[in-house]
C-alpha cells in the first residue's frame, strides 16, 4: 500500500479525475472530500461489507422451498 502524508486542505490525485482532499481533522476522525466522476462508485467500506454479509446470509437462509410454503401458510393465517 502506498502511504502518503497530507496536511489539512492538501489533496491526492488518483489518475486525472479522482481527487481526495483532507477537509478536517478532529482527534481520530479525518474528514475527506472526494471528487470523482459519477460512474465511479464511492462508499464507506463498512457499508459495503455490511451488505455483502447480509447477501451471503440471505442466500444461505430461508431460500428453501419448504420455508416459502411455510410463509404462504403464515400469510393465509394472517388474513
Amino acid at each position, binding site marked *: 500500500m502506498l502511504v502518503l502524508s497530507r496536511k489539512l486542505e492538501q489533496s491526492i490525485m488518483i489518475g486525472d479525475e479522482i481527487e481526495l482532499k483532507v477537509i478536517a481533522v478532529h482527534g481520530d476522525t479525518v474528514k475527506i472530500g472526494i471528487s470523482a466522476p459519477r460512474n465511479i462508485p464511492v462508499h464507506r467500506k463498512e*457499508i*459495503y461489507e455490511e451488505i455483502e454479509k*447480509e447477501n451471503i446470509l*440471505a*442466500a444461505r437462509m*430461508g*431460500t428453501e422451498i419448504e420455508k416459502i*410454503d411455510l*410463509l404462504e401458510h403464515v400469510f393465509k393465517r394472517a388474513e
Partner: protein
Amino acid sequence: MKVATTRFGEFDIAEDQLFMLSSVLPGFPNTKRFFYIQRDNIKPFQWMQSVEEPDVTFVVVDPASFFMDYNPSIPKSDLAEIDLNNQELVELMAIVVLPEDMTKMTANLKGPLIINREKRVLKQIFLETERWSVRESILEGIRKKEQALIEQKVQQEAQK
C-alpha cells in the same frame, strides 16, 4: 437456454427473461445474470435465481408491499448505471432473509436492488443513510401499514 438450479431443478429460460447485473453483487462475484421465479402462492415474494451459480437463490420482495414510507432517493450515478435518468422509472426490490423464526424475517432496505425492466439490467445500491438498515422487520412493516389504514378509516368515519 437451459439453466440448472439446486432448488428448483432445470429451467428453460428465454434470453429476454434474464437480467444482467451492471456491477458485482457483493459476496457473489461469479454471478452475472439472474432470472425471477414467480408463483402465485408466494406473492408478493419472488425468487431471484443466479444463472451462473445453481445454488445461489434469493427471496426478494417489492418493498412497497410492506414498507409504506420507503421512498429512498436514488443517486443519479446509480440510475445512470442501469441506463435510467429518471427515478420514476426505476423498479425497487429488497432481498429478504427468512430465519428459523419466521416472525423475524427481514428485508434489506439499505441495499435495495434497482431494476430497469425494459433493458433488463439490475444493480444493488448502497444508501448512504441511517434511515434504513439491512435488517428491517417485515412484520413490523405490516403492523405499521395496517395501523395507518385503521387510522385512516377512523378519520374518515369521524368526518362523516
